[in-house]
């Protein structure tokens, strides 16, 4: 794409081609204004596609294999370790990293911080995709995935925390689809639908806060069912749901920093000025928010140890592992953020955010797999389980990129003024003929 942009190509970002004024057809929009041949050529040149292709070539057959022969052939999940990587990574890691949707929605729509608008949509998309793929992982893990709607319609186990998780993730997924659909309706040019969604924004945002508070916490509360299995340092009857909720706040924010940094690095051509010029400033802003959540999290983590009087465990091997998790995943990002914010060093802040994201992942894997059954034996997931988990993650990246290339997420959908639109229809459409954006386009958002 970068080389295409150098030759003067401009990706579709408006209703009609700015040179000729011809309206883009749906297929042209899908192909980013390229011909099929051009599109395929740039796809083949992209090294990420080769990596994903290789991963999918191994992973998809394994997924089919799993659905024909059962979980037993691809996982080490056992009667002692019922949950492996599919839930440990796919659900418990993906969900906190997807808290960005409700956090940025709250910041922008509810608290009126319009200055964060350039990254609002990527935060919403990050939320939607994270949740969607958590469900995909779940479907892969469930023994009878076709019965997933059962807790909604067939049998209600209302006293269960998982019931809450199920309902809230399902309703929140709906909320997030509606939130992101605004971008889709702009792209697909359905202004009425967009207006309809826009009217619901505040309602959707508040629904997002309610649902997120409850199910982010509920994922933590799930482990209160296993008091004798999760290591005491990771278990806290009173605080577990607060740990999960508070850590999802910086998890979601840091994930937006990480994802937007990747976009800036690899999809610069797709981002518009608002995104390009504001990103560094907003990254620092996100880091400020994350710092608050990190400090809160560290405080309650220590409070949790004090509350259950678990100091003695810190001297054990498990205590060292626990200390490492806190030092690496919480204190290191705090220090990096403090330095980065103070000296306006965005690179340091981005690095800190990456560490925090990895720290969250480590915490969730610890709670769900590593420190689970600490007094039994350690289980290392089956090689096929790793491959399937990575395949689904690759699918997540591919979907993410597919949407970012097209929908107005990091750029705004522009409108071509009537005069330019009416002007020329006989002109042959070419990529070289690009009019000055300042004269023909107007900000959409």
């Amino acid at each position, binding site marked *: 794409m970068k080389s295409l942009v150098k030759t003067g190509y401009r990706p579709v970002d408006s209703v009609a081609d700015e040179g000729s004024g011809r309206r883009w057809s749906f297929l042209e929009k899908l192909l980013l204004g390229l011909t099929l041949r051009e599109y395929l050529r740039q796809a083949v040149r992209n090294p990420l596609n080769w990596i994903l292709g290789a991963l999918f070539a191994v992973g998809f057959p394994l997924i089919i294999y799993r659905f*024909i*022969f*059962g*979980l037993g052939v691809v996982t080490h*999940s*056992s*009667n*002692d370790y*019922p*949950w492996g990587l599919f839930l440990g990574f796919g659900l418990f890691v993906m969900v906190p990293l997807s808290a960005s949707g409700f956090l940025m929605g709250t910041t922008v729509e*509810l*608290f*009126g911080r319009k200055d964060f608008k350039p990254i609002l949509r990527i935060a919403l998309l990050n939320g939607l995709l994270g949740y969607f793929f958590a469900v995909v992982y779940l479907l892969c*893990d469930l*023994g*009878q*995935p076709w*019965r*997933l709607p*059962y*807790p909604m319609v*067939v*049998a*209600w*186990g209302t*006293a*269960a*925390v*998982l*019931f*809450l*998780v199920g309902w809230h993730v399902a309703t929140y997924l709906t909320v997030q689809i509606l939130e992101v659909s605004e971008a889709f309706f702009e792209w697909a*040019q359905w*202004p009425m639908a*967009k207006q309809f969604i*826009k009217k619901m924004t*505040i309602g959707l945002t*508040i629904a997002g*806060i*309610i649902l997120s*508070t*409850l199910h982010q*916490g*509920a994922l*933590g*509360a*799930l482990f*209160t*069912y*296993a*008091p*004798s*299995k999760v290591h005491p340092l990771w278990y806290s*009857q009173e605080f577990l*749901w607060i740990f999960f909720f508070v850590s999802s706040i910086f998890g979601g924010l840091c994930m937006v920093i990480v994802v937007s940094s990747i976009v800036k690095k690899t999809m610069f051509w797709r981002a518009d000025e608002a995104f390009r010029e504001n990103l560094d400033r907003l990254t620092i802003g996100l880091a400020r928010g994350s710092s608050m959540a990190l400090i809160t999290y560290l405080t309650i983590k220590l409070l949790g140890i004090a509350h259950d009087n678990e100091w003695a465990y810190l001297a054990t091997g498990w205590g060292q592992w626990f200390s490492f998790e806190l030092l690496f995943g919480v204190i290191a990002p705090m220090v990096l953020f403090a330095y980065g914010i103070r000296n306006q060093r965005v690179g340091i802040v981005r690095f800190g955010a990456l560490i925090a994201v990895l720290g969250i992942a480590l915490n969730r894997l610890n709670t769900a797999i590593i420190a689970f059954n600490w007094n*039994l*034996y350690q289980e290392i997931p089956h090689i096929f389980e790793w491959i399937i988990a990575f395949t689904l993650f690759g699918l997540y990246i591919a979907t993410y990129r597919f949407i970012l290339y097209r929908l107005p997420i990091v750029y705004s959908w522009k*409108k071509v003024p009537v005069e330019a639109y009416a002007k020329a229809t006989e002109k042959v459409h070419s990529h070289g003929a690009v009019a000055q954006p300042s004269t023909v386009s107007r*900000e*959409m958002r």
Partner: protein
Amino acid sequence: MSKMTRRKFLSVSLAGAAAGTFTLSGKAIGAAGFTGYPDGMGVLVDLTRCIGCRTCEAACNEEQKLPAPAVPFDDHSVFDELHHGGTQKRRTDENAFTVVNRYEAGKEGQPAYRKIQCNHCNEPACLTSCFVNAYTKTKEGAVIYNSKVCVGCRNCMVACPFRIPAYSYSSAFNPVIRKCIFCYDTRLKFGRPPACVEACPQEVLTFGHRKNLIKVAYERIRVNPGRYVGHLYGENEVGGTSWMYLSGVPFEEVGFDTTLQKEPILANAQAFLSNVPMVLSIWPALFLGFHRLATRGGEGAEEKPATEKREDI
């Protein structure tokens, strides 16, 4: 303007808070003070009488129509079986609902044996953690399972403090949870003891009303204090279980988890669950209030449609 907003904000918040409190008091979740089912049946397992003959395993296998085992039931070499790097003894699985293990814990070099199976908790964690109500605690005391609604999430296996529910991982199209169901369908329902109890030649297993069994157990301890450690395992563990154990050697030496809490497992999630009605009722008003304050009484919101009209396609 701002004064109006603040008043409005306060009133909606208060209404929300009131609704939250009301909901909380109306809905009692949790199990504090739960004492179980007065008429429930149970089994008293007296480990001091067990000789490790595995007759109970064979009886269970036949009654539940389970596949024949790899090693016959009269072969005692299974007691030497160790799994997972030599740390784990045999456990229940999809083809064995009860298992007897040998421990080198007995007095004067005598081995001790322990039979494991579902303990049929008074307030089962599997039941309360299941989001489709696949489990039922019957009035007779059995914890049974409905495979017709099970989604296969395996949360019950995470929740069971005794690690009993097993899963048929090998099945792709109808994997289910498998565990001892107290011979509910074939025996308990008709007032008969489970197959293992009837088959036991040593009278290790005593079937009866749970409340009577507690009396029997303490009577045995009283009459023969040297024979037993003075504890009835299952009387109070995780809210009490229908199957209870007497032992001559410390329980932790024969593989019991002696660190279990007295309260039912559900009690642990209670604090979180009681937040639910509060968040549901207070958050909307609270955050709508924040929104109105943050955007200066909706001024920000009002100016939005005007710009939208200009911007839209």
